[in-house]
């Protein structure tokens, strides 16, 4: 079950990566940094909430609110940096997101210091239950449920709303969508902010279970990267399946043969790239 919890978090971050790649064709290395940012902001928000006398049982409220709100930083990054390189080679876009990775890592160190931060005392607020013979904190189940709900919401957004249709049209054919009157600047700004908010929310939700560390961003990005390669770049369904594969395989590997842990994941990634270069769910267009 630890694997599924991890998969739920991974799904959120990878979904943010996918939505940005799908529409903007930018592989956002900074999504891991957004995740770390969400984690730190989550810790601070919960600490503030408890200090202000909020009931511990409601700690998820400030956590989620903070996680979603700090996603607004995506708008700043998009308007402030990324929009200048949309017509450039994707190498430059990739490098610009790498610049964001570097900046965010130190910005986090400057704001929160280098020692890990946690809200560990709250992790078991909701108690534990036994599921399939394993003891699982109820909080994990809440996060898993939340990820499922968010997955459904994204599905609904993409297929049932006007904005979702515009997003899919842009992903398919940018010039045509633009010619049909879609304001690309607004779409890109919204999509990138949405992608960022998914990452920061993932970071905020993970925080009761683990401590926030400044390296968590660069470490998570390689996992999220594995997820999207396994699932297929740009595919939401792929993100879901990929996150489950990575999350579950990793927890199995840890319990069976710890040395294999991430090695196994990379080997799956390479196998997928070799045999199914566009991932399990990727389209030919990718």
């Amino acid at each position, binding site marked *: 079950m630890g694997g599924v919890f991890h998969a739920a978090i991974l799904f959120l971050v990878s979904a943010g990566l996918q939505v940005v790649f799908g529409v903007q064709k930018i592989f956002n*290395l900074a999504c891991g940094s957004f995740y770390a940012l969400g984690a730190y902001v989550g810790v601070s928000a919960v600490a503030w909430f408890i200090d202000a006398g909020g009931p511990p049982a409601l700690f998820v409220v400030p956590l989620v609110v903070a996680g979603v709100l700090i996603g607004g930083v995506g708008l700043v990054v998009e308007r402030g940096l990324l929009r200048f390189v949309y017509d450039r080679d994707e190498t430059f876009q990739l490098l610009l997101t790498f610049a964001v990775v570097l900046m*965010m890592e*130190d910005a986090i160190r400057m704001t929160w210091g280098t020692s890990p931060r946690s809200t560990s005392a709250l992790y078991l607020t909701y108690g534990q239950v036994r599921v399939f013979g394993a003891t699982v904190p109820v909080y994990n189940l809440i996060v898993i449920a939340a990820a499922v709900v968010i997955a459904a919401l994204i599905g609904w957004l993409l297929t049932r709303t006007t904005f979702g249709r515009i997003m899919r049209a842009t992903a398919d054919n940018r010039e045509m969508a633009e010619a049909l009157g879609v304001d690309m600047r607004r779409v890109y700004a919204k999509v990138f902010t949405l992608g960022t908010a998914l990452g920061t929310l993932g970071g905020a939700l993970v925080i009761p279970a683990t401590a926030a560390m400044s390296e968590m961003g660069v470490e998570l990005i390689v996992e999220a990267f594995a997820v999207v390669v396994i699932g297929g770049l740009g595919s939401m369904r792929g993100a879901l399946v990929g996150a489950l594969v990575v999350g579950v395989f990793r927890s199995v590997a840890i319990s069976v043969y710890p040395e294999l842990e991430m090695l196994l994941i990379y080997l799956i990634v390479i196998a997928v790239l070799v045999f199914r270069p566009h991932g399990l769910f990727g389209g030919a267009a990718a």
Partner: protein
Amino acid sequence: MRSAAVAAALAAIIAVPWVAPTYHVLLMLPFMAYGITLLGLNLLFGWTGLVSFGHALFLGVGAYAGAFLTTNAKIRSLELILVVAAVAAALVAAPVGALCVRYVKIYFGMLTLAFGMVFYTFVLKFYRLTGGDEGIPFPRPALFGRDFAELSKTDYLAGPYYYYALAVLVVAAVVMWRIVHSPFGLCLKTIRDNPTKAETLGIGVSRYRWYAFLISAVYAGVGGALLGPPTGNVDPTLAYWTHSGNLVFMTLLGGFGSFFGPILGAFVFIYLQDWVMSVVPYWRLVFGAILAAVVIAAPGGLLGMVARRRPPLPVARG
């Protein structure tokens, strides 16, 4: 004009151990190791149009090969170490490259990143073989059979080792110069600019990309082996993906469109990093901002800014 600038730079580098404080002399050592690595990386990046986000892998292979030979096999000859590092890098790059060059652009970058992280995880997890996160010591190697035992570590590094590394850099640069100005180099440029046309002209696109990958891996292996002795230790962070990112950063900073751009980039990166770290502990913040500025405003890098009259991306000449 350019040859005069290169000659002046070379003379300055030769003079450094006499005129500069030891601290700065020692900073030149990673610069030269990175310079060699980036010469190779730029064969892929600037000339072939493939951006590797996993080149720290070969840097790591070279560094670990050297550490193994000196620490475990008690082989101290640096000439032998460099050859073994180059061969090891080539042996790793042969299958890795064969897979990677089937893709271009972002997929190539991602696949190289994945392979880089495989190696990173391997050295991190297989503690008994690689020392895990502590790494392996890389004791002082012997140069042309002399171990310079009478010199202190600093004197050794700032003296014989300095010139040895410089000689390797010069040889590497001359060889690379010959490579990029050969018919082979022209083929690579053609592949970069128009793979379809290259294929039509009878150039085996994948095969040439694979050759370029191998050569760049060998350069990184040699650079990695030279990176070890100054610190006296090699550890897995050498192979981490952000290190690969830094390599691409240096190349872009100096200018991937020109031959000497990456070497200049390595120099500026190392010294700027040292200076920024002495002022504030947050060098990544500053460097992230610099990288963003370069990407947005000066994609041709420092040399691209100097040579405005040339287009930022060189087109194949004659």
